[in-house]
């Protein structure tokens, strides 16, 4: 068990595993994104109230859901980094932050564009939207904080603490639609109840959710590899990896 944990912390080991997984993540996420979008845009039935504007759900829900789980994953990584000083946890946190910020932006943007025809307004300062905006600022703050502190170890620790403090926002986002009166509808999927949609609508949504997770895994693996190359550039294995590139010039 400890041997495995130790291995998991080894950058080279992760670099190789990630390299082997990346083509699968890339291929399956692109295939499922195409399938989900064609299904959602062409074959899913229109909503009886909203007509075709509801088709934005197929990108809105996965973006927002992943933006939140990405934050939770970063907070867990931050805790692991603080407690066990595991380098790889910090590599993950650094690689995932810009991806999470992009997904949060997408969730807000697609929600806004969906809100205009549905609610008649691009934006309202209600609980769900405001807490989601705070999530975007948290992501941007985390990225800025890391860039602001030069010493990598100090910045990694500061970022871990900030990420952990910010995690309080996640349950607020999640339950905001239940706690406060809001224009935003409540969750489509819950673990305990049946989905509030027919299968012809929620199946393409599930496909898109899976596609987003795979896409996230793909991009984060590539960015973690980048970060490892940067951090381990003095080591022998990275130098050997770079050597063929040197010979070509």
């Amino acid at each position, binding site marked *: 068990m400890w041997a495995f944990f130790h291995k998991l912390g080894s950058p080279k080991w992760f670099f190789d595993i990630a390299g082997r997984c990346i083509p699968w993540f890339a291929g399956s996420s692109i295939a499922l*994104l195409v399938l989900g979008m064609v299904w959602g845009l*062409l074959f899913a039935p229109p909503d009886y109230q909203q007509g075709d504007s509801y088709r934005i759900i197929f990108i809105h829900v996965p973006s927002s859901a992943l933006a939140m789980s990405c934050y939770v994953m970063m907070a867990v990584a931050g805790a692991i980094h603080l407690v066990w000083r595991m380098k790889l946890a910090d590599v993950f946190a650094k690689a995932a932050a810009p991806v999470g910020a992009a997904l949060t*932006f997408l969730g807000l*943007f697609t929600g806004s564009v969906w809100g205009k025809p549905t609610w008649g307004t691009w934006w309202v300062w209600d609980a769900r939207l405001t807490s989601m905006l705070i999530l975007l600022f948290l992501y941007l703050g985390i990225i800025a904080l890391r860039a602001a502190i030069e010493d990598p170890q100090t910045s990694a620790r500061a970022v871990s603490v900030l990420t952990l403090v910010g995690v309080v926002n996640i349950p607020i986002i999640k339950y905001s639609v239940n706690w406060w009166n809001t224009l935003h509808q409540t969750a489509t999927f819950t673990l305990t109840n049946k989905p509030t949609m027919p299968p012809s609508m929620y199946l393409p949504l599930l496909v898109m959710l899976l596609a987003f997770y795979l896409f996230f895994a793909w991009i984060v693996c590539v960015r973690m590899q980048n970060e490892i190359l940067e951090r381990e550039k003095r080591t022998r294995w990275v130098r050997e990896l770079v050597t063929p590139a040197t010979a070509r010039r």
Partner: protein
Amino acid sequence: MQFHSFAAFIAMGGHGFYVWLAYGVFLLVITTLVVDSHWRRRRILARQARQMRREQVAKPGGRVVKGQSFQEAGESS
């Protein structure tokens, strides 16, 4: 298939602007993520290769193979 014609598909029951704006920005953002992540990789590898070449040239007497001039070693590395 929910739409009878391509024009109806584009119109999205009058909500075409919103649907295509959302999907357009979505595709733009995820494409940017993919391209940015891979460009970074190329930049990192190129910088590292440059750095290693510079080190080899800079090493006093270091990696220079016997019988090879200093300049040659720098170029062929």
